[in-house]
């Protein structure tokens, strides 16, 4: 009974923080909207009305997919107390190499897709592993090294790669199209429209639900199970929570650092799959910034798979809402970024508050137990 009660209490305090954060963020955003001369109720109504459309939901899921994967990549690092800022460079580099390799080879579909995913994960893992190795051998803090590696990736390696591997050159005139050689149809994950339409009406307006969603779900489930239930996950969390105690407990700290960075990078490598699997090429103007957005997702989601899912959906919903707000003129697009910032800020504060409340409550309970035995 006490166990059930304590679990219930835990849920209550766990839910309290996100709810508090959300209420605060909505309230504060309303104030911002009012100050900016917009009608908050109109704006929220437009956002919700828009989001309730099937096509918009597809957009939200398509946006949430890479955000979620990036969030998990960051969370793996956070669990180990590593701040992998390098998800950004890792996923871009991984996507470029994977797109290039995928464009070169011609294979049957499952093999082709598997190869692309494998290449992406390997490149991300290797690039992230560099930061891990630097940390354990040279003591370079991973924040510093990953920032450097990001710069090397985006202004060095990817520039060179794009130039060396770009297709569609030599067309002359006003050709503006650049990117890697398009990947055969066999190397692209099919969209999930058929699956969704089993449950809903036909999807209109040219929308395709990305097949990478399946990959994201697999990553999320694997993360949840491995971190929560496996011995490796235990070692990872223990090392992150208290590296000294973990070391004494037989968990080699250096190996855990490298492993965590490699795994984080491997997952990061998958972030760019929506781009190259859906578009078939790594373009000259890839979507950038997902790595940093992933940090926010992990933060809001408290490094849990379910939390990251909710966080990714919230961010995706807000990102997608920027269009409708501009289209209807009910608010400027900046409000979306303001809301995202407010939610993160409020969540961080709320988590702290509830964490302390819980610590106090537990200490009190323990003290009571002690007194009860003593008297």
């Amino acid at each position, binding site marked *: 009974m*006490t*166990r059930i009660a*304590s*679990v219930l209490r*835990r849920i209550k305090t766990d839910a309290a923080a996100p709810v508090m954060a959300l209420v605060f963020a909505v309230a504060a955003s309303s104030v911002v909207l009012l100050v900016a001369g917009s009608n908050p109720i109109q704006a929220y109504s437009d956002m919700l009305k828009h989001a309730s459309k099937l096509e918009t939901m597809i957009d939200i899921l398509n946006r949430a997919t890479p955000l979620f994967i990036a969030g998990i990549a960051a969370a793996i690092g956070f669990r180990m107390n590593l701040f992998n800022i390098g998800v950004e460079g890792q996923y871009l580099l991984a996507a470029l190499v994977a797109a290039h390799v995928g464009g070169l080879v011609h294979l049957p579909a499952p093999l082709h897709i598997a190869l692309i995913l494998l290449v992406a994960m390997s490149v991300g893992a290797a690039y992230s592993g560099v930061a891990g190795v630097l940390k354990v051998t040279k003591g370079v803090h991973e924040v510093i090294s990953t920032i450097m590696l990001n710069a090397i990736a985006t202004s060095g390696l990817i520039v060179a790669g794009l130039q060396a591997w770009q297709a569609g050159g030599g067309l002359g005139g006003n050709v503006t199209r650049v990117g890697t050689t398009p990947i055969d149809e066999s190397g692209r994950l099919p969209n999930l429209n058929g699956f969704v339409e089993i449950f809903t009406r036909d999807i209109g307006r040219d929308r395709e639900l990305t097949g990478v969603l399946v990959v994201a779900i697999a990553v999320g489930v694997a993360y949840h199970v491995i971190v929560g*239930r*496996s*011995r*490796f*996950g*235990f*070692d990872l*969390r*223990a090392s992150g*929570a*208290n590296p*000294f*105690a*973990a*070391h*004494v*407990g*037989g*968990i*080699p700290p250096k190996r855990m650092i490298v492993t965590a960075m490699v795994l984080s990078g491997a997952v990061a490598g998958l972030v760019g799959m929506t781009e190259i699997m859906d578009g078939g090429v790594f373009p000259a103007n890839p979507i950038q910034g997902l790595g940093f957005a992933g940090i926010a997702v992990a933060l809001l989601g408290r490094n849990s798979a379910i939390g990251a899912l909710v966080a990714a959906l919230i961010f995706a919903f807000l990102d997608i809402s920027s269009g409708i707000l501009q289209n209807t003129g009910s608010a400027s697009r900046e409000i979306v970024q303001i809301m995202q910032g407010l939610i993160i800020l409020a969540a961080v504060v709320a988590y702290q508050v509830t964490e302390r409340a819980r*610590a106090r409550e*537990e*200490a*009190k*309970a*323990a*003290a*009571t*137990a*002690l007194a009860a*035995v003593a008297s």
Partner: protein
Amino acid sequence: MARAIELIGITKRFPGVVANDKVDLAVEQGEIHAVCGENGAGKSTLMKILYGMQNADEGTMKVNGQEVRFHKPTDAIDLGIGMVHQHFMLADQLTVLESVILGSEPTLAGGRIDFAAAKAHLAEVSQAYGLNVDPDQLIESLEVGERQRVEIIKVLYRGAKILILDEPTAVLVPQEVEELFRNLRELKANGATILFIDHKLAEVLAIADTVTVLRQGRSVATVKAADVTAPQLAELMVGSELPTPATSESTVTDDVVLQVRDLQINEAGRPVVSDVNIVIRRGEVVGVAGVEGNGQAALVDGIIGTRPVAGGTIELLGDDVTRQSVRHRRERGIGYIPQDRQREGLLLLAPLWENAALGHQTQAPYSQGFWMNRSGMRTATQEIRSEFDVRTPNIDVAAHALSGGNQQKFIVGREMHSQPTLLVAAHPTRGIDVGAQAAVWDQLKAARAAGLATLLVSADLDELIGLSDTIVVMFRGRIVATLDPAKVTPRDLGAYMTGAATQDDAA
């Protein structure tokens, strides 16, 4: 003349602990008053209350006859109370003068610091109390004793007439202790009142006029230093009803569990452990005595595998594990009670049932192959909880919620639960209450009787003498004596520990 300080009925509670229970303390003007007691007796809490760092839940506090309530240290400073902390709060890159005036700089017009005035005032203060310092020296170039002097001057500079010194000798070598005592007598001669916190009886008797003894959060006696002997004071400190650590007959067998040969461990290129040879057999407790910092910690790290070994071998049950990982050694049956339980023993924010697996997570019942076994973890935790009397509302609370004693009982329970062949216990009863201490002793004795080999490192000489079958003394990284606890007194041990005595045939 009113008393400098008078505390009446001070009570302070923390979750799970009553740190101060109706403590009375009366300090006369111009005396050196020692507050002594064991670790965890409530000395530090009392001083924090007196210095305004914590608020008492109950009780009255008077300074120079006037009732006061402090909310922050500056309240205490304003009334002429200054505190010299055990850990110095000095910045290496500042000069002595800068360090002393930091936070109370005399300023000229425009906010510039008036260094001339500061220097003059500093000279005045050091003259008045007979404390010599060079104001222009960098802190980083000072010896420990000199830094402490700077801390004292810093307090005097702010006009303190009542000084609280929190275990000031803990960081000093004997010559520095003498120097400190000379300074304190000088201060006293110049009218200062000194409150001196310590648990080293010889020092207390050497310097104090009056001694107040705290035990388990209560003030048990206030005596004139001239009227008591060290053993009497010790009895006051530990109380007569205390359990003794003494074990009965020997259970030592012939089966060697741990054999350490010619062990050398380096730190920053210099040996901190050299030529150490230790043999521990089944059913034997080998105690390691030594003043802190003489290589015991490194020895422990080397044996459990968290620190690389520079030379020599470590054999566990006949297998050379010198180059093996911590995990390998754990799986081979090393249990470990770390010296700092919060730093090395627990995941403070994780629930107890996860903490139970730490160090044993590769073994049943905590895991099965790749996966952790949650029900196994929970069952084992319940067993630890009941067998080792860990007082907790349930096993889902985070480890930090437990009191220190219960955390320690939990760690001991965790290590014992997987039935180790060798237990490495570093200061297993440090900083825990007497009840938990007795429980831990009982567990160690029971395990010894059941055939456990134990390496016991402790600063508590009575504990060492009481529990050990053999005692080795470490001094500057070497074993300087191997002694029979039946034939040795704490005084003898102390002589070896400080290098005053040597044993030619030390193993």
